[in-house]
């Protein structure tokens, strides 16, 4: 799968520009994290890729074809999207929620093949026992898996996730991240995720896109992008980077070697070092380049 973002800008009004002339070339099965402060345009960028929003300038090319020439259903067959959260005003059961992911492929009736695909994915993600539970009865971690399952039954070549690890405890953060890594490695899916957790991104990503003020500030392997200078420039936070099993590990400077300033919330001072057995790293020569 090849996505070329050529010089796109997006604004809701001329005075409020969200994205400013972004160019990116993404190729191959890998995990790419999009990082950057709140409001920098990360969600807008991925919405421009799968046609939820239309860039005010520039084009997004999927497999060398302008995305505006694809129908929404054609895009949905290629790109799965896992939103930050999903509405539960009228909750469906898990199986019905995930079945909606078959919409781009399905006709009017739900076929046995659709059901088989759904149950396969539910099993793979270890949530088949939740099949008949209602979506609004699930925990945040379970909901995240259900939304991921919905994206996967689209049988996409790319899956885009908006902060998949937010609201999750550390175990579930690692679980989801590991699942995404496996998906890209075993099934050749390009995973594009927005993240706020620099260490998760550093550990599990093959490439990182760091955004700053509506533009791409840096692109490349985690160790190239997540530098003390870049973090200071983009987030305005001092940090210290150490090498942890070949991955950069970021310690925020004002928390390092200090007594915990907030005794009511001591956990804010603890930054867990991730220990993951699997070896990771880019499996192919393909990667991300900033055009």
């Amino acid at each position: 799968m090849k996505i070329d973002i050529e010089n796109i800008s997006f604004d809701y009004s001329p005075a409020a520009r969200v994205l400013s002339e972004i160019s990116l070339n993404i190729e191959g099965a890998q995990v790419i994290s999009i990082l950057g402060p709140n409001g920098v345009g990360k969600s807008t960028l991925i919405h421009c890729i799968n046609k939820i929003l239309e860039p005010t300038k520039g084009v997004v090319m999927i497999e060398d074809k302008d995305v505006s020439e694809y129908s929404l259903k054609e895009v949905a067959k290629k790109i799965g999207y896992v939103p930050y959260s999903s509405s539960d005003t009228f909750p469906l059961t898990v199986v019905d929620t995930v079945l909606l992911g078959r919409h781009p492929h399905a006709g009017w009736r739900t076929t046995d093949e659709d059901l088989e695909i759904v149950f396969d994915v539910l099993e793979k993600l270890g949530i088949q026992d939740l099949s008949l539970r209602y979506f609004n009865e699930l925990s945040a971690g379970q909901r995240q898996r259900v939304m991921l399952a919905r994206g996967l039954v689209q049988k996409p070549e790319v899956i885009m996730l908006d902060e998949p690890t937010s609201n999750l405890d550390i175990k579930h953060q690692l679980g989801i991240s590991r699942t995404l890594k496996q998906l890209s490695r075993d099934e050749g899916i390009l995973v594009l995720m927005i993240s706020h957790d620099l260490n998760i991104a550093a550990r599990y990503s093959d490439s990182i896109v760091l955004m700053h003020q509506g533009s791409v500030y840096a692109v490349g392997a985690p160790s190239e992008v997540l530098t003390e200078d870049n973090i200071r420039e983009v987030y305005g936070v001092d940090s210290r980077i150490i090498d942890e099993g070949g991955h950069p590990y970021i310690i925020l400077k004002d928390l390092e070697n200090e007594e915990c300033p907030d005794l009511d919330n001591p956990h804010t001072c603890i930054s867990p070092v991730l220990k993951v057995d699997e070896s990771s790293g880019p499996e192919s020569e393909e990667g991300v380049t900033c055009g």
Partner: protein
Amino acid sequence: MEGIPTEDRVDADYRSYLVRKVIFIIGVLIGCIVVAGISLTINGRGIEFFDCYEYIIKHILGYEYEYRTEDWFNDYVLWNTYMPRVVIAIVSGCGLAICGVIMQSVFSNPLADPYTTGVSDGATLGATMAIVSGLTFANVAGSLGVVINAFIGALVPAVIIILISGAVRLSPATMILIGVALSGVFSGLQTLVMYSADPEELTAALRWGIGSFNQIQWSDCVIPALVTVIGSVLSIFMYRNLNLLTLGEASAKSLGLDVEQFKSLCMVLVAFMAAAIICYVGIIGFVGLISPHFVRMILGGDNKYVIPASMLVGSFFLLASDLIARLVVFPDELRVGLIMSVVGAPIFLYMIVKRKKGYGEVF
């Protein structure tokens, strides 16, 4: 279940969960048949429950009786006096319930229906203008002119709400407040139109205020039935799109649904169905609101089942309300709209308080 692989067990559970839904739908259908039958027995000729159905079924099959025999009279009275009333109750119940399901899904709002969003009042204003002043937007005379006027009247609040919801993210409560404001405007305009009416026209126009099935004839059933059948078929085919909308707009779009286009289509459909029904029976509140809620509490949110089940539950509510309207002050009659409000509003309140499965959480 021991020894059965998990996958098969889950699959079997899923299928039995679908069967339970179908059983519920069949149960409500039987309820409708029973209530309609009881309604038919209040016929002034002492025809019993099963005999009523025998006459109706024979009539449908084309059976003819000897002129002016007792059977002929029974058949004539049942078919021409009481059957249209049952049919319009079923048609209105189905139509208004579908309007409720569609509007609630389109706006992700459990409180939306034609009554609460001002669509009903818009339709009433359009119809009143046609009746009182003979002023039709489309320049078509007769009852079709009234329907078209009501449709255009219903479309106005529908379009306003679509435009506002496109610009601002509306909470369920805010949308209802907009509905109240729009209803106020339409009621005011309607009063203004009525000022110029003579007493006869005024009576005709006032008929719309509280819905009623009194004096409904077969000729009154044609347009509502036709529009409701078309609307039902379309909405049943659109069930998956309606399900997609409940995921939120970005998710629906990412799964291939052209959200803006689909919403517009839905609102045109709702305006047309609501207008076609309101023109003939007047405003009946709550049925479009309560029926889908009731169904979702029992069957969950999948519109594949919510749509047909709500149609039946809506029909059941209106058949039962009409039956009550006919019994309370027998041999006189009350208006079905009145009964639906008196019975429906407390049920709705109860549903909000009960909040099963997070339901009725409106703010």
